[in-house]
């Protein structure tokens, strides 16, 4: 019984996407830290990407709805700050999805070329360290001229 509730919650919560980047689930990004069931009590733990990430309120609401869909009657969405979120928690699959979506993914250790999501050229330059959201920088491709967002390493 407990196991099935856990499975259902994991499945439903696992479907919750980031409202700013709808191709990625909160599990892909590393925002979803834990799903725990003790008896009927379900606790889902999430962590913010940036301190002031405005998407957190929406995500918290979406997680609560997903828990309800999974049949939780006694549920809590917990927010933890430590250990601090890092782009290293983003899965390789998530990074590919990001690139296909038009956002250059964070690079491992913050080194290596930034690829243009449109033409895949590595000749790109940063226009601003701060893009459309706190977690992204604004980059322009020197080969095809495409301006795009880059997910910053954190």
């Amino acid at each position, binding site marked *: 019984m407990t196991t099935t509730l856990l499975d259902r919650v994991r499945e439903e919560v696992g479907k919750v996407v980031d409202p700013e980047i709808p191709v990625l689930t909160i599990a892909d990004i590393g925002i979803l830290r834990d799903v725990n069931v003790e008896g009927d009590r379900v606790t889902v733990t999430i962590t913010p990407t940036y*301190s002031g990430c405005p998407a957190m309120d929406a995500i918290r609401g979406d997680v609560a709805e997903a828990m309800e869909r999974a049949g939780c009657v006694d549920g809590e969405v917990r927010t933890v700050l*430590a250990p601090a979120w890092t782009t290293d928690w983003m899965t390789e699959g998530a990074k590919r999805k990001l690139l296909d979506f038009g956002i250059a993914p964070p690079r491992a250790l913050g080194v290596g070329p930034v690829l243009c999501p449109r033409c895949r050229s590595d000749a790109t330059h940063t*226009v601003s360290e*701060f893009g459309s959201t*706190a977690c992204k920088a604004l980059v322009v491709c020197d080969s095809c001229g495409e301006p795009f967002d880059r997910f910053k390493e954190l």
Partner: protein
Amino acid sequence: MTVRSPTPAGVATASFPYVLRHGDDNLILAQQLGEWISQGPELESDIALANIAVDHLGVARMLLTYAGELEGDGRDEDALAMGRTERQYTNLLLVEQPNGDFATTMARQLFVDAYQVELWAALTGSADPTLAGVSGKAIKEASYHLRHSSTWVIRLGDGTEESHHRMQRAVDDLWRFTGEMLTPDAVDEQMAAIWVGPDIAAFRRPWTERVTAVLDQATLQVPTDDYARLGGRSGIHTEHLGHLLGELQWMQRTYPGMTW
């Protein structure tokens, strides 16, 4: 000099005034930077300042929430932000100085950013686990903020005659407010004694080195006057904070408890 042995995390709790002051710094900074929205010299800098404002607001919300819990009188982040008067705010005088021109804002941000990278790095090892958690996030963001303000100060200082002149004027005007960040008071000393907070006097050297390096590269003169204007930490503010709070708190003062 005393050498202390490391203390395991979680053995001590920060005091209400200590958490409150750092929350206040970030709330006031967020409000100031928010004023630049739609006023920035170019779209990218406009967006950058808004993003930095959101970072500071996020830190402020966490710290004010925690301060309210420590106080134990049922005040939440909103009650603390919207319900306190000027004299009850304990932010640094530096952060309440008006935006002025873009050079003034960048000088203020450089001075604050260079301080906050030291502060958050030190607080990451705080014996208070909540403070350590908040700082662990804030330090990553502060590094981006420092890069942003440093880049602008260098570009403006080493720019045209006009931008150089304005950047130097901004640095000179704000310099007297920088000493406050590096001058411990009784609250700082109490927190340092129980491993919750760092000795902020020790920030003076790295702060000065960092700021000097940027100003040198910007071809600007480092002010030599070491007079420090104090008062913010004890609620004695410059004339600017009252006006700022008037705008920040207007809605809640006019319609108490209003929500949407």
